[in-house]
């Protein structure tokens, strides 16, 4: 029995050594990354100091171009949106950013019915993206720890933290700009065009019950910003062939303090023309530029300067 115990200890020590060496290498790969999704997450968490921060999933990442906002509003802007991520990721990001910097305003792109959807399956993708930063950023730990009670122990291993990340860690060294070019400031435009189809128009007019867990985390995210004097603009991006009339989510947001729902009536201009879309959910690059321009105009009409001033 002693021999077995001894061998297991040797194996454990060898693993710690490998974990340390490979972990050190992987940390360096992220630190020196020219661009890419991990570079973007690290920049958002550790270095971003822009006046306007954009949050959301792939639709935020693809639809809102910071450079257009910068030119029109004369404020710096960074798009921290990330595909396949939802509230757990946004909260972690917001906590990381707000710890050292308060933006003048935040833009959050969500679905019209978002608060009625559950969050099951949202924690793991968020943790998958953020685990490499677990040790250095205490503020992101609560969301990662929701994956399982063992996360806090597993994340002592750097190899675990970098699980399945190697492809996206190394890719920016070989091909630059696949996750968005540096000069686009977090924006990741997509190219291509949908095929015309005969699908019938979807009208979103629903009173689905709000999901308690989603609402709780949403409130947490919003209050993180508003407590620090950062107003939040909520944007509903267009979808192909979809018209939004009303939802419980929209009603809920309209009643929130220091949260500004950007009028989405213009979505119809985009949503009825398939040429604006790469797929049903994503505007292509040309349409995204148009959409950002429309968004900025609306924000100006909402008197954005006085909103920012008011919240200082």
């Amino acid at each position: 029995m002693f021999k077995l115990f001894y061998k297991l200890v040797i194996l454990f020590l060898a693993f710690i050594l490998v974990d340390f060496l490979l972990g050190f290498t992987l940390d360096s790969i992220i630190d020196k990354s020219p661009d890419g999704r991990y570079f973007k997450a690290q920049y958002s968490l550790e270095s971003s100091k822009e006046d306007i921060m954009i949050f959301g999933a792939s639709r935020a990442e693809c639809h809102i171009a910071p450079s257009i906002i910068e030119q029109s509003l004369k404020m710096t802007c960074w798009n921290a949106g990330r595909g396949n991520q939802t509230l757990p990721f946004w909260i972690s990001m917001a906590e990381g950013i707000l710890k050292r910097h308060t933006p003048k305003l935040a833009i959050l792109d969500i679905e019209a019915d978002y608060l009625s959807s559950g969050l099951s399956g949202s924690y793991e993708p968020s943790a998958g993206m953020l685990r490499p930063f677990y040790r250095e950023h205490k503020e992101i730990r609560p969301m990662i720890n929701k994956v399982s009670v063992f996360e806090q122990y597993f994340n002592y291993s750097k190899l675990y933290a970098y699980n399945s990340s190697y492809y996206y860690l190394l890719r920016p060294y070989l091909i630059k700009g696949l996750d968005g070019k540096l000069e686009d400031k977090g924006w990741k435009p997509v190219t291509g065009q949908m095929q015309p189809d005969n699908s019938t128009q979807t009208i979103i007019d629903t009173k689905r019950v709000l999901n308690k867990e989603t609402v709780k985390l949403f409130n947490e995210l919003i209050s993180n910003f508003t407590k620090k004097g950062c107003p939040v603009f909520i944007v509903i991006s267009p979808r192909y062939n979809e018209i939004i009339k009303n939802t419980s989510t929209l009603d809920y947001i309209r009643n929130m303090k220091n949260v500004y729902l950007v009028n989405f009536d213009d979505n119809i201009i985009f949503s009825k023309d398939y040429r604006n879309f790469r797929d049903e959910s994503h505007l292509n690059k040309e349409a995204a530029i148009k959409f950002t321009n429309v968004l900025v105009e609306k924000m100006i009409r909402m008197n954005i300067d006085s909103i920012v001033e008011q919240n200082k």
Partner: protein
Amino acid sequence: MIFNSINYFLFLPIVFLLYYLIPNRFRWILLLVSSTVFYSIGGVETIAVPIIIIISTFVSAILIERNSDPGIKKRYFWLGLIINLGLLVFFKYINFFIATVFDGFEIVKKMSHEGLVNTYQPIELQLIVPLGISYITFQAIGYLIEIKRGSHIAEKNFGYFATYLMFFPKLLSGPIERAHNFLPQLQLEHKFDYDQVVQGLKRILWGLFLKVAIANRLALYTSAVLDNSEHHTGTTLLIASLFYTLQMFTDFSGYTDMAIGSAQVFGYKLTENFNAPFSAKSIADFWRKWHITLSSWVNDYIYTPIVINKRDWGKSAVVYAGMVTFLILGFWHGASWNYIIFGFLQGVILAIEFLTRKSRKKMRKHIPNWLNSIIGMCYTFLFFTFSLIFFRAYTASDGIYIVSKIFTDLGATFYMGDIGIFSYSLIGILIVAIQGIVSVYYPKFKLLNNDSRYIRFLTILFLVVYIISFGVFDGGQFIYFQF
């Protein structure tokens, strides 16, 4: 509790330490208690079912043995059999039978244009299927048959018998262990054997690697494609189907490695369930290498008795027995037509192989051996993949849809999904393929059991690092748990 859960990796060392700390005569009690705990975590609502099976089988076996009158023996045998099969049918198949009867009513109604039933509303009983019921039942039935045949003595120690059916390493998905292999081991003195324990731990590690790093990884792709078959081309569906075969193998053989390895650390030897199945050159050969304990169970208790019973039929007896056996085997997997089609396809191909064996033998003489082997292996792999499409599908019509799309919509483009996930899947397949080739053709170069302790050590370290770096830890339970 599942083998790839953290709970199991806390549970196993605790039981292991206690096992070797207590005297040998009490160890079976520890195994029984820990197996009950193992079952209860996740299946406490249905713990009564294995208890009923254990008691009824134990009592029936003793009564069969004690009575010399063949009629009474038969009655007790049938009593035990009906209780076992009754529980299995009730929990696993009742909803299927109800739905089938209602479907029948609906067809009659449509044909006669008269309202036999006013509205079509199949009743679905909300039953929790007891964990591992198919495996426990098959072991119990096999035991009763052996007692009735007089080829095995009934176990008189109820605790031993309960431990045989409940032994946690094989409780949920086999191997389907024969009583004559397991029960004698309970009475042996299990001293701590370093080599055996290390071998067991290595198998657990390899099984974990297959499940977490390969099967779960492949599942990310196969689920994304096969669950949305209407959105994918035939080429993509073909690739996903090929991946699914490998996922099924790594998932199930990974589970089996963990089961056998877990038993081995306690000094128990369970029956092997796989023997390089993709090296098989025919489907008949394949079923001797795949899920061996199930194949041999149906061979001993269904196929052979039918062949003997119908021996007057000549070749037809073999074909008939094969069809019946594989239809039952398909149905054993689940109460759904897609499983029955899976079994039916195996039966048909085995019949064809049987009826054409002489002509194929003649043909093989004109082809070099190595080419024969490659053709045989490719044919076996592709046919099994084809049949697994029905196995994986939610309904028979889903399976037919996927097959028809594969044959009619093959093109150059295919959906790769996340390139990271796809490429890690390919790396995993490559590792398993190399391991498979090495173990069959170059056993000397086996890495985990290499002569050099440095190579053994580095291999173990590599597997640990690979599992932690590429494992998919939220991949859920093993595929065969549902059966």
